[in-house]
Protein backbone atom coordinates (compact mmCIF):
# COMPACT_ATOMS: atom_id res chain seq x y z
CA UNK A 1 0.00 0.00 0.00
CA UNK A 2 1.34 3.35 -1.01
CA UNK A 3 -0.06 6.73 -1.89
CA UNK A 4 -0.24 7.81 -5.51
CA UNK A 5 3.32 8.92 -6.33
CA UNK A 6 1.90 12.33 -7.32
CA UNK A 7 1.15 12.91 -3.63
CA UNK A 8 4.87 13.53 -3.20
CA UNK A 9 5.10 15.96 -6.12
CA UNK A 10 5.09 19.60 -5.16
CA UNK A 11 4.47 21.57 -8.35
CA UNK A 12 4.10 24.94 -6.59
CA UNK A 13 7.04 24.56 -4.23
CA UNK A 14 8.90 27.75 -5.06
CA UNK A 15 9.35 31.24 -3.69
CA UNK A 16 6.12 33.07 -3.06
CA UNK A 17 2.55 31.90 -2.84
CA UNK A 18 1.22 28.67 -4.37
CA UNK A 19 -1.19 30.69 -6.54
CA UNK A 20 -1.13 33.88 -8.59
CA UNK A 21 -3.72 35.98 -6.76
CA UNK A 22 -1.38 38.02 -4.62
CA UNK A 23 2.22 38.20 -3.53
CA UNK A 24 3.56 37.47 -0.07
CA UNK A 25 4.32 40.57 1.93
CA UNK A 26 5.38 41.30 5.52
CA UNK A 27 3.10 43.97 6.99
CA UNK A 28 5.98 45.34 9.08
CA UNK A 29 8.23 45.87 6.06
CA UNK A 30 5.75 47.91 4.04
CA UNK A 31 5.83 51.68 3.87
CA UNK A 32 3.74 53.01 6.76
CA UNK A 33 0.20 53.92 5.82
CA UNK A 34 -1.15 57.22 7.09
CA UNK A 35 -4.79 58.10 7.68
CA UNK A 36 -6.28 61.60 7.33
CA UNK A 37 -6.11 63.95 10.32
CA UNK A 38 -3.23 61.97 11.81
CA UNK A 39 -5.56 59.27 13.01
CA UNK A 40 -3.72 56.09 13.98
CA UNK A 41 -6.40 53.42 14.20
CA UNK A 42 -9.61 53.40 12.21
CA UNK A 43 -12.48 51.29 13.42
CA UNK A 44 -14.25 49.83 10.41
CA UNK A 45 -17.72 48.69 11.44
CA UNK A 46 -19.26 46.22 8.99
CA UNK A 47 -22.86 45.19 9.64
CA UNK A 48 -24.10 42.05 7.89
CA UNK A 49 -27.71 42.66 6.85
CA UNK A 50 -29.13 39.31 5.86
CA UNK A 51 -32.43 37.79 4.81
CA UNK A 52 -32.81 34.05 5.26
CA UNK A 53 -35.51 32.39 3.14
CA UNK A 54 -37.42 29.83 5.20
CA UNK A 55 -36.60 27.43 2.36
CA UNK A 56 -32.83 26.94 2.76
CA UNK A 57 -30.64 25.49 0.06
CA UNK A 58 -27.50 23.48 0.59
CA UNK A 59 -25.91 24.18 -2.77
CA UNK A 60 -23.10 24.92 -2.62
CA UNK A 61 -23.48 25.02 1.18
CA UNK A 62 -25.94 26.22 3.81
CA UNK A 63 -25.10 29.67 5.12
CA UNK A 64 -24.10 30.09 8.78
CA UNK A 65 -27.16 31.14 10.76
CA UNK A 66 -29.58 29.51 8.34
CA UNK A 67 -32.62 27.33 9.10
CA UNK A 68 -31.99 24.32 11.33
CA UNK A 69 -35.26 22.57 12.15
CA UNK A 70 -37.58 20.70 9.83
CA UNK A 71 -39.71 22.91 7.61
CA UNK A 72 -41.15 25.33 8.55
CA UNK A 73 -38.43 26.65 10.88
CA UNK A 74 -40.28 29.58 12.38
CA UNK A 75 -37.80 30.03 15.18
CA UNK A 76 -34.78 30.74 12.98
CA UNK A 77 -36.67 32.53 10.23
CA UNK A 78 -38.10 35.00 12.70
CA UNK A 79 -35.07 35.25 14.97
CA UNK A 80 -32.98 36.24 11.95
CA UNK A 81 -35.61 38.68 10.73
CA UNK A 82 -35.53 40.28 14.18
CA UNK A 83 -32.20 41.67 13.09
CA UNK A 84 -33.80 43.43 10.12
CA UNK A 85 -36.71 44.89 12.10
CA UNK A 86 -35.24 45.72 15.51
CA UNK A 87 -31.55 44.91 15.82
CA UNK A 88 -30.41 47.01 12.89
CA UNK A 89 -32.19 50.09 14.27
CA UNK A 90 -30.48 49.68 17.63
CA UNK A 91 -27.16 49.46 15.80
CA UNK A 92 -27.92 52.48 13.63
CA UNK A 93 -28.78 54.51 16.72
CA UNK A 94 -25.62 53.34 18.44
CA UNK A 95 -23.53 54.48 15.48
CA UNK A 96 -25.29 57.83 15.34
CA UNK A 97 -24.57 58.46 19.02
CA UNK A 98 -20.83 58.38 18.36
CA UNK A 99 -20.99 59.92 14.90
CA UNK A 100 -19.71 56.75 13.26
CA UNK A 101 -20.27 55.85 9.64
CA UNK A 102 -20.12 52.17 8.77
CA UNK A 103 -20.22 49.73 5.89
CA UNK A 104 -23.47 47.76 5.72
CA UNK A 105 -23.07 44.49 3.84
CA UNK A 106 -26.57 43.86 2.58
CA UNK A 107 -28.18 41.04 0.69
CA UNK A 108 -29.89 42.19 -2.49
CA UNK A 109 -33.10 40.83 -0.97
CA UNK A 110 -32.91 43.44 1.78
CA UNK A 111 -33.12 46.14 -0.87
CA UNK A 112 -36.02 44.44 -2.62
CA UNK A 113 -37.96 43.71 0.56
CA UNK A 114 -37.17 46.62 2.88
CA UNK A 115 -36.47 49.74 0.79
CA UNK A 116 -37.32 52.01 3.73
CA UNK A 117 -34.56 50.36 5.78
CA UNK A 118 -32.14 50.93 2.93
CA UNK A 119 -33.06 54.61 2.82
CA UNK A 120 -32.56 54.96 6.56
CA UNK A 121 -29.09 53.44 6.23
CA UNK A 122 -28.06 55.57 3.29
CA UNK A 123 -29.51 58.77 4.81
CA UNK A 124 -27.38 58.22 7.91
CA UNK A 125 -24.25 58.29 5.77
CA UNK A 126 -23.41 54.62 5.80
CA UNK A 127 -22.00 52.77 2.83
CA UNK A 128 -23.84 49.84 1.28
CA UNK A 129 -21.64 46.98 0.20
CA UNK A 130 -22.84 43.85 -1.56
CA UNK A 131 -23.42 40.63 0.37
CA UNK A 132 -24.97 38.34 -2.27
CA UNK A 133 -28.62 37.94 -3.21
CA UNK A 134 -30.02 36.41 -0.04
CA UNK A 135 -28.74 33.82 2.39
CA UNK A 136 -29.23 31.08 -0.17
CA UNK A 137 -26.68 32.89 -2.33
CA UNK A 138 -23.59 31.11 -1.09
CA UNK A 139 -20.55 30.80 -3.34
CA UNK A 140 -18.08 27.94 -3.53
CA UNK A 141 -16.42 25.88 -6.22
CA UNK A 142 -19.12 24.00 -8.08
CA UNK A 143 -21.55 26.89 -8.34
CA UNK A 144 -20.56 27.47 -11.98
CA UNK A 145 -19.22 30.63 -13.54
CA UNK A 146 -22.44 31.79 -15.22
CA UNK A 147 -24.50 31.37 -12.08
CA UNK A 148 -21.91 33.12 -9.96
CA UNK A 149 -21.65 36.02 -12.38
CA UNK A 150 -25.45 36.41 -12.40
CA UNK A 151 -25.56 36.29 -8.60
CA UNK A 152 -23.02 39.11 -8.37
CA UNK A 153 -24.71 41.29 -10.97
CA UNK A 154 -28.23 40.70 -9.55
CA UNK A 155 -27.02 41.73 -6.13
CA UNK A 156 -25.39 44.89 -7.39
CA UNK A 157 -28.47 45.78 -9.45
CA UNK A 158 -30.86 45.33 -6.51
CA UNK A 159 -28.72 47.35 -4.15
CA UNK A 160 -28.14 50.11 -6.68
CA UNK A 161 -31.87 50.48 -7.30
CA UNK A 162 -32.63 50.90 -3.61
CA UNK A 163 -29.54 52.79 -2.47
CA UNK A 164 -29.05 55.02 -5.49
CA UNK A 165 -25.43 54.04 -5.96
CA UNK A 166 -23.73 50.88 -7.15
CA UNK A 167 -21.77 49.24 -4.31
CA UNK A 168 -18.00 49.39 -4.49
CA UNK A 169 -17.37 46.61 -1.99
CA UNK A 170 -18.26 42.94 -1.70
CA UNK A 171 -18.51 40.52 1.21
CA UNK A 172 -19.28 36.90 0.38
CA UNK A 173 -21.51 34.88 2.68
CA UNK A 174 -19.16 33.16 5.15
CA UNK A 175 -16.35 34.85 3.15
CA UNK A 176 -16.56 31.81 0.88
CA UNK A 177 -15.37 32.08 -2.69
CA UNK A 178 -14.79 29.91 -5.74
CA UNK A 179 -11.59 30.10 -7.76
CA UNK A 180 -13.49 32.47 -10.10
CA UNK A 181 -14.73 34.94 -7.49
CA UNK A 182 -11.94 37.55 -7.40
CA UNK A 183 -11.99 37.76 -11.22
CA UNK A 184 -15.78 37.97 -11.41
CA UNK A 185 -15.87 40.68 -8.75
CA UNK A 186 -13.24 42.71 -10.62
CA UNK A 187 -15.12 42.12 -13.87
CA UNK A 188 -18.30 43.46 -12.23
CA UNK A 189 -16.47 46.67 -11.44
CA UNK A 190 -16.14 46.18 -7.70
CA UNK A 191 -13.21 48.02 -6.16
CA UNK A 192 -12.72 45.90 -3.08
CA UNK A 193 -13.69 42.69 -1.34
CA UNK A 194 -13.47 41.67 2.30
CA UNK A 195 -13.15 37.88 2.24
CA UNK A 196 -9.44 37.09 2.60
CA UNK A 197 -8.58 37.30 6.29
CA UNK A 198 -4.81 37.09 5.89
CA UNK A 199 -3.79 40.63 6.78
CA UNK A 200 -4.56 43.61 8.98
CA UNK A 201 -4.36 46.08 6.08
CA UNK A 202 -5.72 46.26 2.54
CA UNK A 203 -3.60 44.98 -0.30
CA UNK A 204 -4.01 44.53 -4.04
CA UNK A 205 -4.90 41.29 -5.79
CA UNK A 206 -4.43 40.66 -9.48
CA UNK A 207 -7.01 38.87 -11.60
CA UNK A 208 -7.32 38.35 -15.36
CA UNK A 209 -10.12 40.95 -15.25
CA UNK A 210 -7.95 43.50 -13.48
CA UNK A 211 -6.94 44.38 -9.96
CA UNK A 212 -9.13 44.34 -6.89
CA UNK A 213 -8.29 45.46 -3.36
CA UNK A 214 -8.75 42.99 -0.53
CA UNK A 215 -9.75 44.82 2.65
CA UNK A 216 -9.53 42.03 5.25
CA UNK A 217 -12.53 41.73 7.55
CA UNK A 218 -11.02 39.71 10.39
CA UNK A 219 -13.47 36.92 11.16
CA UNK A 220 -11.75 36.24 14.48
CA UNK A 221 -12.94 39.61 15.77
CA UNK A 222 -16.54 39.16 14.58
CA UNK A 223 -19.51 38.96 16.92
CA UNK A 224 -20.47 35.70 15.21
CA UNK A 225 -17.11 34.10 16.02
CA UNK A 226 -16.74 35.33 19.58
CA UNK A 227 -20.35 35.35 20.79
CA UNK A 228 -22.00 32.62 18.73
CA UNK A 229 -19.25 30.18 17.76
CA UNK A 230 -17.00 30.50 20.81
CA UNK A 231 -19.95 31.37 23.09
CA UNK A 232 -18.12 34.03 25.08
CA UNK A 233 -19.92 36.81 26.89
CA UNK A 234 -20.58 40.28 25.54
CA UNK A 235 -18.35 41.70 28.27
CA UNK A 236 -15.51 39.44 27.15
CA UNK A 237 -16.13 40.46 23.55
CA UNK A 238 -15.87 44.13 24.45
CA UNK A 239 -12.72 43.52 26.48
CA UNK A 240 -11.18 41.70 23.51
CA UNK A 241 -11.98 44.60 21.21
CA UNK A 242 -10.43 47.07 23.66
CA UNK A 243 -7.35 44.85 23.92
CA UNK A 244 -7.16 44.66 20.12
CA UNK A 245 -7.45 48.41 19.84
CA UNK A 246 -4.75 48.96 22.47
CA UNK A 247 -2.39 46.62 20.66
CA UNK A 248 -3.00 48.14 17.22
CA UNK A 249 -2.72 51.65 18.58
CA UNK A 250 0.65 50.91 20.16
CA UNK A 251 1.82 49.26 16.94
CA UNK A 252 0.74 52.24 14.86
CA UNK A 253 3.26 54.47 16.63
CA UNK A 254 6.07 52.52 14.98
CA UNK A 255 4.47 51.03 11.90
CA UNK A 256 1.79 53.39 10.66
CA UNK A 257 -1.98 53.35 10.41
CA UNK A 258 -3.97 50.34 11.51
CA UNK A 259 -7.58 49.15 11.18
CA UNK A 260 -9.82 47.55 13.79
CA UNK A 261 -12.54 45.68 11.87
CA UNK A 262 -15.77 45.12 13.82
CA UNK A 263 -17.99 42.70 11.92
CA UNK A 264 -21.41 42.92 13.53
CA UNK A 265 -24.64 41.00 12.99
CA UNK A 266 -27.96 42.68 13.90
CA UNK A 267 -29.61 39.50 15.17
CA UNK A 268 -26.56 38.78 17.36
CA UNK A 269 -25.37 42.17 18.62
CA UNK A 270 -28.68 43.99 18.37
CA UNK A 271 -30.26 42.10 21.27
CA UNK A 272 -31.43 44.00 24.34
CA UNK A 273 -28.98 42.30 26.69
CA UNK A 274 -25.98 43.01 24.47
CA UNK A 275 -26.55 46.39 22.88
CA UNK A 276 -25.70 48.54 25.90
CA UNK A 277 -22.26 46.97 26.22
CA UNK A 278 -21.70 47.49 22.52
CA UNK A 279 -22.74 51.14 22.83
CA UNK A 280 -20.22 51.54 25.63
CA UNK A 281 -17.55 49.95 23.48
CA UNK A 282 -18.26 52.39 20.66
CA UNK A 283 -18.16 55.31 23.10
CA UNK A 284 -14.87 54.06 24.54
CA UNK A 285 -13.37 53.76 21.07
CA UNK A 286 -14.63 57.21 20.09
CA UNK A 287 -12.91 58.68 23.13
CA UNK A 288 -9.48 57.21 22.37
CA UNK A 289 -6.92 59.72 21.09
CA UNK A 290 -6.00 59.16 17.47
CA UNK A 291 -9.04 57.00 16.82
CA UNK A 292 -11.58 57.41 14.05
CA UNK A 293 -14.46 55.50 12.51
CA UNK A 294 -14.38 54.93 8.75
CA UNK A 295 -16.30 53.21 5.99
CA UNK A 296 -14.66 50.61 3.78
CA UNK A 297 -14.77 52.81 0.69
CA UNK A 298 -13.04 55.61 2.62
CA UNK A 299 -10.31 53.27 3.87
CA UNK A 300 -9.73 51.85 0.41
CA UNK A 301 -9.67 55.35 -1.04
CA UNK A 302 -7.09 56.58 1.47
CA UNK A 303 -4.99 53.42 1.32
CA UNK A 304 -5.26 52.86 -2.42
CA UNK A 305 -2.63 55.35 -3.48
CA UNK A 306 -0.31 54.29 -0.65
CA UNK A 307 -0.28 50.55 -1.27
CA UNK A 308 0.93 50.77 -4.87
Amino acid at each position, binding site marked *: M*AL*DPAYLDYPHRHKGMDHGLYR*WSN*IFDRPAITWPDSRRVLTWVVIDLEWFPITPTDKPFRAPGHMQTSYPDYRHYTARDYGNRVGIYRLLDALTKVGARASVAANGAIAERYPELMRDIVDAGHEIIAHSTDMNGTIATGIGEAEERALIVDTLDSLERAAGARPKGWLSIARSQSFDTPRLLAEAGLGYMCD*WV*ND*DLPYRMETPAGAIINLPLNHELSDRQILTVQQQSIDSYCE*QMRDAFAWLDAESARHGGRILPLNITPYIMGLPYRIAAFEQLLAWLAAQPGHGFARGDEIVGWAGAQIG
Partner: protein
Amino acid sequence: MREGEGDPGLYPYSPYRGRPKLEWPGGKKVAVWISPNLEFYELDPPANPHRKSWAKPHPDVVGYAHRDYANRVGHWRMAEMMEKHGFKGSVSLSVALCQHVPEVVEHANALGWEFFSHGIYNTRYSYGMDEVQERAIIEDSIRTVREATGQTIKGWLAPALTHTPRTLDLIAEYGLTYTCDLYHDDQPGPVAVRSGTLISMPYSLEVNDHYGFFIYNMSPRDYAETLIRHYDRLAAEGAESGTVMCIPLHSYLIGQPHRIGAFERVLQHIVDDGRAWITRSGDIADHYLAQRSKTAEI
Protein backbone atom coordinates in the same frame (compact mmCIF):
# COMPACT_ATOMS: atom_id res chain seq x y z
CA MET B 1 5.38 0.13 17.37
CA ARG B 2 3.61 -3.19 17.55
CA GLU B 3 1.36 -2.77 14.56
CA GLY B 4 -2.20 -4.00 14.97
CA GLU B 5 -1.93 -4.72 18.71
CA GLY B 6 -4.04 -2.97 21.31
CA ASP B 7 -0.93 -1.81 23.13
CA PRO B 8 1.32 -0.32 20.48
CA GLY B 9 4.32 -0.76 22.80
CA LEU B 10 5.48 2.81 22.38
CA TYR B 11 7.21 3.07 25.77
CA PRO B 12 7.48 1.22 29.10
CA TYR B 13 5.00 2.16 31.81
CA SER B 14 6.64 4.38 34.42
CA PRO B 15 4.59 5.97 37.21
CA TYR B 16 5.27 9.63 37.99
CA ARG B 17 5.73 8.83 41.68
CA GLY B 18 9.17 7.56 42.66
CA ARG B 19 11.11 8.41 39.53
CA PRO B 20 14.66 9.68 39.80
CA LYS B 21 14.65 13.47 39.66
CA LEU B 22 15.60 15.19 36.43
CA GLU B 23 18.07 17.98 37.05
CA TRP B 24 17.96 21.02 34.83
CA PRO B 25 20.87 23.42 34.34
CA GLY B 26 21.29 26.08 37.02
CA GLY B 27 19.04 24.20 39.42
CA LYS B 28 15.95 25.25 37.50
CA LYS B 29 12.71 23.42 38.20
CA VAL B 30 10.90 23.37 34.89
CA ALA B 31 12.25 23.45 31.35
CA VAL B 32 10.05 25.80 29.33
CA TRP B 33 10.08 25.79 25.58
CA ILE B 34 7.92 27.60 23.08
CA SER B 35 7.09 25.87 19.85
CA PRO B 36 5.93 28.23 17.10
CA ASN B 37 4.43 26.20 14.30
CA LEU B 38 5.78 27.90 11.18
CA GLU B 39 3.60 26.39 8.51
CA PHE B 40 2.61 26.57 4.92
CA TYR B 41 -0.77 25.29 3.78
CA GLU B 42 -1.61 24.74 0.12
CA LEU B 43 -4.63 26.37 -1.47
CA ASP B 44 -5.36 23.35 -3.64
CA PRO B 45 -3.53 20.30 -2.29
CA PRO B 46 -3.99 16.81 -3.74
CA ALA B 47 -6.36 14.54 -1.86
CA ASN B 48 -5.10 12.06 0.68
CA PRO B 49 -7.51 9.07 0.76
CA HIS B 50 -7.34 8.94 4.56
CA ARG B 51 -7.92 12.59 5.49
CA LYS B 52 -9.46 15.64 3.87
CA SER B 53 -7.29 18.73 3.91
CA TRP B 54 -9.82 21.55 3.88
CA ALA B 55 -13.35 21.47 5.27
CA LYS B 56 -14.72 23.19 2.18
CA PRO B 57 -14.25 22.66 -1.55
CA HIS B 58 -11.03 24.36 -2.62
CA PRO B 59 -10.42 27.21 -2.27
CA ASP B 60 -11.32 27.29 1.42
CA VAL B 61 -10.72 31.01 1.57
CA VAL B 62 -11.12 31.52 5.31
CA GLY B 63 -9.17 28.39 6.22
CA TYR B 64 -6.30 29.27 3.92
CA ALA B 65 -6.23 33.02 4.48
CA HIS B 66 -6.47 32.65 8.26
CA ARG B 67 -3.31 30.54 8.20
CA ASP B 68 -1.63 32.81 5.68
CA TYR B 69 -2.03 35.61 8.26
CA ALA B 70 0.85 33.92 10.10
CA ASN B 71 3.45 34.64 7.46
CA ARG B 72 2.28 38.19 6.70
CA VAL B 73 1.43 39.48 10.18
CA GLY B 74 1.35 37.03 13.08
CA HIS B 75 4.87 35.61 12.97
CA TRP B 76 6.53 38.99 13.15
CA ARG B 77 4.39 40.13 16.04
CA MET B 78 4.87 36.90 18.01
CA ALA B 79 8.61 36.68 17.31
CA GLU B 80 9.25 40.25 18.42
CA MET B 81 7.48 39.62 21.71
CA MET B 82 9.33 36.35 22.33
CA GLU B 83 12.64 38.05 21.65
CA LYS B 84 11.76 40.94 23.96
CA HIS B 85 11.34 38.48 26.83
CA GLY B 86 14.22 36.20 25.93
CA PHE B 87 12.41 33.18 24.52
CA LYS B 88 13.95 31.35 21.57
CA GLY B 89 11.54 29.33 19.49
CA SER B 90 11.77 25.63 18.72
CA VAL B 91 10.09 25.61 15.38
CA SER B 92 7.72 22.98 14.16
CA LEU B 93 8.37 23.69 10.50
CA SER B 94 6.49 22.89 7.32
CA VAL B 95 9.79 22.61 5.50
CA ALA B 96 8.34 23.92 2.20
CA LEU B 97 8.15 27.27 3.97
CA CYS B 98 11.90 27.41 3.27
CA GLN B 99 10.98 27.72 -0.41
CA HIS B 100 7.75 29.73 -0.18
CA VAL B 101 8.58 32.34 2.44
CA PRO B 102 12.31 32.06 3.17
CA GLU B 103 12.10 35.45 4.89
CA VAL B 104 10.26 33.89 7.85
CA VAL B 105 12.71 30.98 8.13
CA GLU B 106 15.76 33.22 7.84
CA HIS B 107 14.33 35.55 10.46
CA ALA B 108 13.74 32.72 12.91
CA ASN B 109 17.18 31.26 12.21
CA ALA B 110 18.86 34.61 12.76
CA LEU B 111 17.12 34.85 16.16
CA GLY B 112 18.74 31.56 17.17
CA TRP B 113 15.60 29.46 16.95
CA GLU B 114 15.83 25.70 16.50
CA PHE B 115 14.02 23.90 13.70
CA PHE B 116 12.49 20.46 13.64
CA SER B 117 10.28 18.99 10.96
CA HIS B 118 6.52 19.20 10.78
CA GLY B 119 6.47 17.59 7.32
CA ILE B 120 6.63 19.19 3.91
CA TYR B 121 3.31 21.04 4.02
CA ASN B 122 0.62 20.96 6.66
CA THR B 123 -1.70 19.90 3.85
CA ARG B 124 0.29 16.69 3.02
CA TYR B 125 -0.40 13.85 5.36
CA SER B 126 1.62 10.73 6.13
CA TYR B 127 -1.42 8.45 6.27
CA GLY B 128 -1.14 5.79 3.58
CA MET B 129 2.52 6.34 2.77
CA ASP B 130 4.70 3.30 2.22
CA GLU B 131 8.19 3.14 3.66
CA VAL B 132 9.87 4.55 0.58
CA GLN B 133 7.54 7.55 0.59
CA GLU B 134 7.96 8.18 4.27
CA ARG B 135 11.74 7.99 3.96
CA ALA B 136 11.46 10.54 1.16
CA ILE B 137 9.73 13.12 3.36
CA ILE B 138 12.18 12.56 6.21
CA GLU B 139 15.17 12.90 3.87
CA ASP B 140 13.54 15.94 2.26
CA SER B 141 13.07 17.50 5.70
CA ILE B 142 16.66 16.93 6.76
CA ARG B 143 18.04 18.23 3.47
CA THR B 144 15.72 21.23 3.18
CA VAL B 145 16.30 22.51 6.70
CA ARG B 146 20.06 21.97 6.40
CA GLU B 147 20.23 23.92 3.13
CA ALA B 148 18.03 26.75 4.41
CA THR B 149 19.42 27.16 7.93
CA GLY B 150 22.59 25.10 8.36
CA GLN B 151 20.84 23.21 11.15
CA THR B 152 20.44 19.46 11.41
CA ILE B 153 16.99 18.65 12.68
CA LYS B 154 16.78 16.61 15.86
CA GLY B 155 13.04 16.31 16.23
CA TRP B 156 9.78 15.51 14.50
CA LEU B 157 6.18 16.56 14.86
CA ALA B 158 4.22 14.67 12.23
CA PRO B 159 2.59 16.83 9.55
CA ALA B 160 -0.86 17.71 10.89
CA LEU B 161 -0.17 14.96 13.45
CA THR B 162 -0.51 12.20 10.83
CA HIS B 163 1.56 9.09 11.47
CA THR B 164 2.27 5.66 10.11
CA PRO B 165 3.21 2.65 12.25
CA ARG B 166 6.82 3.07 11.17
CA THR B 167 7.33 6.83 11.66
CA LEU B 168 9.10 6.60 15.01
CA ASP B 169 11.42 3.80 13.85
CA LEU B 170 12.37 5.73 10.75
CA ILE B 171 13.11 9.09 12.38
CA ALA B 172 15.30 7.31 14.95
CA GLU B 173 17.11 5.50 12.14
CA TYR B 174 17.87 8.86 10.54
CA GLY B 175 19.42 10.07 13.78
CA LEU B 176 16.64 12.26 15.10
CA THR B 177 16.53 12.12 18.88
CA TYR B 178 13.06 13.27 19.87
CA THR B 179 9.42 13.06 18.87
CA CYS B 180 6.78 15.62 19.84
CA ASP B 181 3.89 13.32 18.95
CA LEU B 182 3.36 11.51 22.25
CA TYR B 183 1.43 13.12 25.10
CA HIS B 184 1.72 10.64 27.93
CA ASP B 185 3.96 12.60 30.32
CA ASP B 186 5.27 15.90 31.70
CA GLN B 187 8.85 14.63 31.46
CA PRO B 188 10.88 13.29 28.56
CA GLY B 189 11.18 9.53 28.41
CA PRO B 190 12.44 6.70 26.24
CA VAL B 191 10.50 5.56 23.17
CA ALA B 192 10.77 2.00 21.88
CA VAL B 193 12.29 1.99 18.39
CA ARG B 194 13.86 -0.62 16.11
CA SER B 195 17.26 1.04 16.09
CA GLY B 196 18.92 4.11 17.53
CA THR B 197 17.67 6.20 20.45
CA LEU B 198 14.47 8.18 20.55
CA ILE B 199 12.85 10.10 23.38
CA SER B 200 9.47 11.69 23.74
CA MET B 201 9.57 15.44 24.22
CA PRO B 202 6.57 16.82 26.12
CA TYR B 203 4.74 18.99 23.63
CA SER B 204 1.12 19.71 24.46
CA LEU B 205 -2.28 19.64 22.93
CA GLU B 206 -4.00 20.76 26.12
CA VAL B 207 -2.26 24.13 26.23
CA ASN B 208 -1.75 24.42 22.48
CA ASP B 209 -3.23 27.73 21.37
CA HIS B 210 -5.35 25.91 18.80
CA TYR B 211 -6.95 23.82 21.55
CA GLY B 212 -7.27 26.81 23.83
CA PHE B 213 -9.09 28.92 21.31
CA PHE B 214 -10.97 26.39 19.17
CA ILE B 215 -11.49 23.29 21.27
CA TYR B 216 -12.00 24.94 24.66
CA ASN B 217 -13.18 28.26 23.18
CA MET B 218 -11.17 30.32 25.64
CA SER B 219 -10.96 34.06 25.55
CA PRO B 220 -7.45 35.45 25.12
CA ARG B 221 -7.20 36.31 28.81
CA ASP B 222 -8.54 32.91 29.87
CA TYR B 223 -5.91 31.22 27.74
CA ALA B 224 -3.18 33.35 29.28
CA GLU B 225 -4.45 32.48 32.77
CA THR B 226 -4.47 28.79 31.81
CA LEU B 227 -0.85 28.94 30.75
CA ILE B 228 0.12 30.71 33.98
CA ARG B 229 -1.59 28.07 36.12
CA HIS B 230 -0.04 25.29 34.03
CA TYR B 231 3.36 26.85 34.50
CA ASP B 232 2.96 27.48 38.24
CA ARG B 233 2.02 23.87 38.87
CA LEU B 234 4.81 22.38 36.78
CA ALA B 235 7.35 24.74 38.36
CA ALA B 236 6.20 23.73 41.85
CA GLU B 237 6.28 20.01 41.10
CA GLY B 238 9.52 20.41 39.20
CA ALA B 239 11.34 21.13 42.47
CA GLU B 240 10.92 17.41 43.18
CA SER B 241 10.72 15.89 39.73
CA GLY B 242 12.11 18.19 37.02
CA THR B 243 9.33 18.95 34.55
CA VAL B 244 8.91 20.20 30.99
CA MET B 245 6.38 22.73 29.80
CA CYS B 246 5.84 23.39 26.13
CA ILE B 247 3.77 26.26 24.78
CA PRO B 248 2.81 25.28 21.22
CA LEU B 249 1.76 28.29 19.20
CA HIS B 250 0.37 29.22 15.82
CA SER B 251 1.01 32.86 15.08
CA TYR B 252 -2.20 33.17 13.08
CA LEU B 253 -3.94 32.59 16.42
CA ILE B 254 -1.73 34.00 19.16
CA GLY B 255 -0.54 36.82 16.88
CA GLN B 256 -4.02 38.31 16.51
CA PRO B 257 -4.38 41.81 17.91
CA HIS B 258 -6.89 40.78 20.58
CA ARG B 259 -4.69 37.95 21.85
CA ILE B 260 -1.05 38.95 21.72
CA GLY B 261 -1.25 41.46 24.58
CA ALA B 262 -2.76 38.94 26.98
CA PHE B 263 -0.08 36.43 26.01
CA GLU B 264 2.68 38.86 26.92
CA ARG B 265 1.66 38.55 30.57
CA VAL B 266 2.48 34.84 30.39
CA LEU B 267 6.02 35.41 29.19
CA GLN B 268 6.54 38.14 31.76
CA HIS B 269 5.23 35.85 34.50
CA ILE B 270 7.61 33.03 33.58
CA VAL B 271 10.61 35.30 33.33
CA ASP B 272 9.82 37.07 36.62
CA ASP B 273 9.23 33.77 38.42
CA GLY B 274 12.80 32.63 37.90
CA ARG B 275 12.27 28.88 38.29
CA ALA B 276 12.23 28.17 34.56
CA TRP B 277 15.03 26.96 32.33
CA ILE B 278 13.88 28.90 29.27
CA THR B 279 15.27 26.86 26.45
CA ARG B 280 14.73 24.94 23.23
CA SER B 281 13.49 21.41 22.68
CA GLY B 282 16.78 20.18 21.22
CA ASP B 283 18.66 21.50 24.23
CA ILE B 284 16.26 19.68 26.54
CA ALA B 285 16.76 16.48 24.56
CA ASP B 286 20.56 16.83 24.60
CA HIS B 287 20.58 17.54 28.32
CA TYR B 288 18.23 14.67 29.11
CA LEU B 289 20.18 12.18 27.01
CA ALA B 290 23.51 13.25 28.54
CA GLN B 291 22.04 12.96 32.03
CA ARG B 292 20.58 9.56 31.27
CA SER B 293 23.80 8.15 29.88
CA LYS B 294 25.66 9.42 32.94
CA THR B 295 23.14 7.70 35.19
CA ALA B 296 23.47 4.52 33.18
CA GLU B 297 27.27 4.57 33.63
CA ILE B 298 26.87 4.80 37.38
